[in-house]
């Protein structure tokens, strides 16, 4: 019996009824039997009641969604009206005729279908991506009520923020009897060394509050979720494992509950296995450990205890994010004051402000603008390919004037002829659409592998009905769109005199007829589209190259970096292990310099320190700066540059004078001109004064964000406490750095076999990973632009070829009257280039108008960069000259005698 008290029979009946489908009683009874059996089975295997309920409810949902087998088959309505029948039969005959007509001229048909296929493929893939990433609800029940919480502090007229975090004071203040939310949950990312299951490995984990499962409204597949009594310390340590981890490392054994895992050497008891769709906070996370948000004031201690973590809440039904944010802000402002720590974190200790962002927007906000721009780009691409088909159809209509006139004379109405032409182009559209859809499914299958690892929700992007439907609609629309103009043209033809003519245009009409003007207009539009996409692609790739080459304040070439997590060790022991490792690494041939740091640039981690300092003038200033604890040779290993003074050396030891190095921003902001020799009151050590011995060039810690003040101290001298961050070794090599990674691993294993290196990567690899998204966007846009250019080129070739064929008599007359081949060549080339130039101008104007929307995403290049625009123009003119060449040569080689005789 389900927990709701209703029998499965009733529940299944209601589920089907709610969809408006009538199902046989016997079928309902049979499905209810199945549900009861499944329930008994799961209970017997020890699955918790709530999980059983969920599993069966999911099963019932699947039954309800299953296509028609449960209902009686629909019988075709025999009273199909006569008009419908005749329409169907006439449509069928038109379809047959269209296929025959198209198969007589397979060339243009194939070109048209191919261009449509390319356009549809691009649209379907992008539409699918936009659906899967931006629109599809998150995989939690009523996920539209989930909000991510951000905390900031008022600082002057603005707000100081630090990453996407919340502090424990604000969190706990809101958690106590909130009026606007159902639940609030907290989590933070973590990593552990897993041992005892074969080879030791680093695994991604998350510390999550028990309440997070209430927020997400989910629970484990097997076992139980966290309870408030579960603590991360002591003998009762527990862990939940991911479905992937369960199958990969534990062979999906049913008896894993109660088993102990060794994480960083400590035993944790497995209390549950999460379902396959639980990928929180990301799909790499393999383990979850309970997390309790501690109070800001520890009883019996005067020190404040500030914790930072991520948080999410579930709004009560009907409550808006703004209402909840107002309550959260009011509560946070009543929380105990965080004091100077708030300055370190937020850069200000002003009043707190809480911001709530819908969880879906939050997960996708950094890819949303790019995806929408790319979607717009593929729509342009599709428009270009539709224009191409329209153009081909227009040309075919013109050359089929006689055929159409004969059919009209035989009694076909102009409407019928027009419909015939639309049906023809719809056939082209559908053929292209089908091919495009097939292509798109292949692309969509491989897409996740192409996307950067941190691209949100990649695992939820599957080629589904949304993509297929978009493709189908686009294909029909493309066909109709491409057929309308020729159809309109055909109606004008009927009743005129084409029957009396020979199917070729009289001299001069090849250019001046309304059909020719329509073709030219379409051609201009195609070139304009190609121009817009080319300009976009050129700007994005330049921006990407500029990002690649940007001066990051150090030399990224030939540097190998390796994370060496040392949790639970004292500072002395940590330094001993690291110093031993560095000593061994330095003796490896090919290593130029080696050192370690607590925070490596470009990794996104950060450690801040705040202290008050007397300025030379006597005024006190509050310093807030990034803090790096580095070994003697680290700065030379990274290739950092000294502006004034010196870097650390081996003479800076535990017993020598305390020294520090600052970056240029620090010197400028806090020390003025004579930075070297200044004294920083760092630490509560017996020697509080640290002398600045050098100023280094600014090193970018993230990519495009501005550089803040930064200070460095030697690891040999910093013994106070944990410096924040986690140790990373960096070494500069003579040869390719990756060759040294096995040696590095063996050195570490040799020092202590229980140690495992974390991520090992060259600095260049780290830069590339950071730029994966800009690289992807510029590559995609370049591919779209290339396709648009190819389509425009094919179109231009087609239009000019057709024009030359139509004007053959005019050209022959010119030739007979003494025009040289060179002048005929020029004539056709001029016609083509005139079209291109006009399209180019329109495209440039559009690009300049649109650049505002992407301008702020560019780096190191202006959206109106004249060199880029000129290069695109030249490139396009060159490409169109190539497309014009063949028709122009044909015009030049016309034999006037043959042409005029054949007339």
């Amino acid at each position, binding site marked *: 019996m389900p927990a709701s008290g209703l029998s499965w029979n009733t529940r299944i009946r209601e589920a089907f009824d709610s969809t408006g489908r009538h199902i046989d009683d016997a079928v309902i009874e049979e499905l209810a039997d199945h549900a009861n059996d499944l329930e008994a089975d799961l209970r017997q295997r020890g699955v918790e009641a709530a999980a059983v309920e969920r599993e069966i409810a999911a099963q019932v949902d699947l039954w309800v969604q299953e296509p028609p087998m449960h209902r009686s088959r629909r019988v075709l309505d025999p009273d199909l009206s006569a008009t419908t029948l005749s329409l169907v039969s006439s449509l069928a005959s038109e379809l047959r005729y269209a296929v025959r007509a198209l198969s007589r001229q397979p060339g243009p048909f194939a070109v048209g279908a191919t261009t449509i296929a390319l356009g549809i493929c691009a649209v379907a893939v992008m539409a699918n991506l936009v659906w899967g990433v931006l629109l599809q609800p998150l995989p939690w029940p009523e996920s539209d009520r989930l909000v991510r919480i951000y905390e900031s502090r008022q600082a002057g007229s603005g707000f100081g923020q630090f990453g996407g975090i919340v502090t424990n004071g604000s969190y706990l203040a809101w958690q106590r009897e909130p009026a606007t939310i159902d639940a609030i949950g907290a989590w933070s990312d973590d990593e552990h060394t897993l041992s005892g299951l074969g080879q030791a490995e680093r695994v991604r984990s998350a510390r999550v509050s028990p309440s997070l499962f209430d927020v997400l409204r989910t629970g484990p597949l097997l076992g139980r979720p966290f309870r408030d009594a579960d603590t991360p310390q002591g003998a009762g340590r527990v862990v939940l494992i991911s479905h992937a981890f369960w199958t990969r490392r534990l062979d999906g054994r049913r008896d894993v509950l109660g088993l102990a895992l060794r994480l960083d050497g400590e035993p944790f008891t497995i209390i549950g296995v999460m379902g396959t769709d639980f990928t929180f906070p990301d799909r790499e996370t393999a383990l979850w450990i309970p997390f309790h948000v501690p109070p800001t004031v520890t009883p019996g201690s005067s020190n404040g205890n500030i914790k930072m973590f991520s948080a999410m809440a579930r709004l009560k039904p009907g409550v808006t994010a703004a209402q909840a944010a107002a309550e959260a802000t009011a509560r946070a402002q009543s929380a105990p004051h965080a004091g100077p720590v708030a300055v370190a974190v937020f850069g200000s200790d002003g009043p707190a402000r809480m911001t709530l962002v819908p969880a879906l927007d939050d997960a996708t906000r950094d890819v949303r603008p790019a995806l929408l721009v790319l979607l717009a780009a593929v729509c342009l691409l599709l428009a270009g390919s539709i224009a191409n088909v329209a153009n081909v159809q227009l040309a075919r209509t013109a050359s089929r004037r006689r055929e159409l006139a004969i059919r009209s004379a035989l009694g076909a109405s102009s409407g019928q002829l027009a419909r015939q032409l639309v049906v023809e182009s719809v056939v082209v559209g559908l053929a292209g659409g089908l091919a495009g859809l*097939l292509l798109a499914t292949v692309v969509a299958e491989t897409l996740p592998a192409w996307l950067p690892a941190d691209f949100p929700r990649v695992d939820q992007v599957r080629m589904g009905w949304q993509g297929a439907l978009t493709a189908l609609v686009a294909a029909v629309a493309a066909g109709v769109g491409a057929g309308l103009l020729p159809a309109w043209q055909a109606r004008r033809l009927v009743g005129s005199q084409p029957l009396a003519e020979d199917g070729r245009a009289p001299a001069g009409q090849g250019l001046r007829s309304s059909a020719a003007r329509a073709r030219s207009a379409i051609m201009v539009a195609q070139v304009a589209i190609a121009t817009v996409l080319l300009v976009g692609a050129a700007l994005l790739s330049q921006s990407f190259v500029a990002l690649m080459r940007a001066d990051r304040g150090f030399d990224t070439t030939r540097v190998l970096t390796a994370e060496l997590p040392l949790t639970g060790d004292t500072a002395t022991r940590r330094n001993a292990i690291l110093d031993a490792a560095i000593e061994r690494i330095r003796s490896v041939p090919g290593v130029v310099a080696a050192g370690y740091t607590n925070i490596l640039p470009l990794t996104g981690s950060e450690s801040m320190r705040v202290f008050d300092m007397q300025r030379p003038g006597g005024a006190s200033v509050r310093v807030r700066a990034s803090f790096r604890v580095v070994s003697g040779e680290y700065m030379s290993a990274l290739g950092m540059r000294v502006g004034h003074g010196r870097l650390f050396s081996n003479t800076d030891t535990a017993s020598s004078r305390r020294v520090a190095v600052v970056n240029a921003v620090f010197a400028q902001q806090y020390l003025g001109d004579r930075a070297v020799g200044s004294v920083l009151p760092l630490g509560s050590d017996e020697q509080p004064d640290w002398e600045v011995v050098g100023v280094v060039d600014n090193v970018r810690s993230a990519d495009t964000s501005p550089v803040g003040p930064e200070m460095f101290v030697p690891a040999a001298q910093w013994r106070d406490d944990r410096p924040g961050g986690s140790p990373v070794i960096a070494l500069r090599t003579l040869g390719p750095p990756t060759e040294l990674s096995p040696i590095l691993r063996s050195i570490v294993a040799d020092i202590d076999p229980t140690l495992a290196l974390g991520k090992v990567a060259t600095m260049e690899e780290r830069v590339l990973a950071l730029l994966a998204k800009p690289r992807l966007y510029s590559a995609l846009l370049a591919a779209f632009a290339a396709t648009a250019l190819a389509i425009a080129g094919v179109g231009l070739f087609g239009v000019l070829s057709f024009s030359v064929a139509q004007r053959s008599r005019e050209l022959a007359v010119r030739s007979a009257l003494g025009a040289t081949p060179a002048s005929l060549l020029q004539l056709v080339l001029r016609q083509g280039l005139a079209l291109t130039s006009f399209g180019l101008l329109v495209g440039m104007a559009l690009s300049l108008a649109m650049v505002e929307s992407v301008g702020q995403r560019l780096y190191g290049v202006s959206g109106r960069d004249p060199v880029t625009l000129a290069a695109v123009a030249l490139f396009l003119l060159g490409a169109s000259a190539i497309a014009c060449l063949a028709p122009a040569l044909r015009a030049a080689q016309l034999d006037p005698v043959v042409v005029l005789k054949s007339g």
Partner: protein
Amino acid sequence: MGATFFDRELKRGSAEMLILALLEEQERHGYELARLIGERSRGAISFHAASLYPTLYRLKGNGFIDGRWVERAGQRRRRYYRLTAAGRKTLARQRGLWEQFVNGLERVARFRPELEHTDP
């Protein structure tokens, strides 16, 4: 969709044969069929119970299997399915086709699935 489409057709064909084969042994009810398929393939074929019943009704509609309600003392009544003569013939033919397919796979891809025989 390419791979999934193929997968679906293959699974659909194999699902029918699996059901017929299981019913060849004895009469069974729906839940038992779902459980046996999962167990005997050691989870490799987790063809979803959602498509089980449509498949059963299709097989019944084609006259390959027969269903009847059986009431036992102290239990819910259940629908049991059994193989018809036509179903037996179809099963034999499908087995032949699958054998050809598997032999073909072996010749081309040097692939030999580990088949576990269930006694008829």
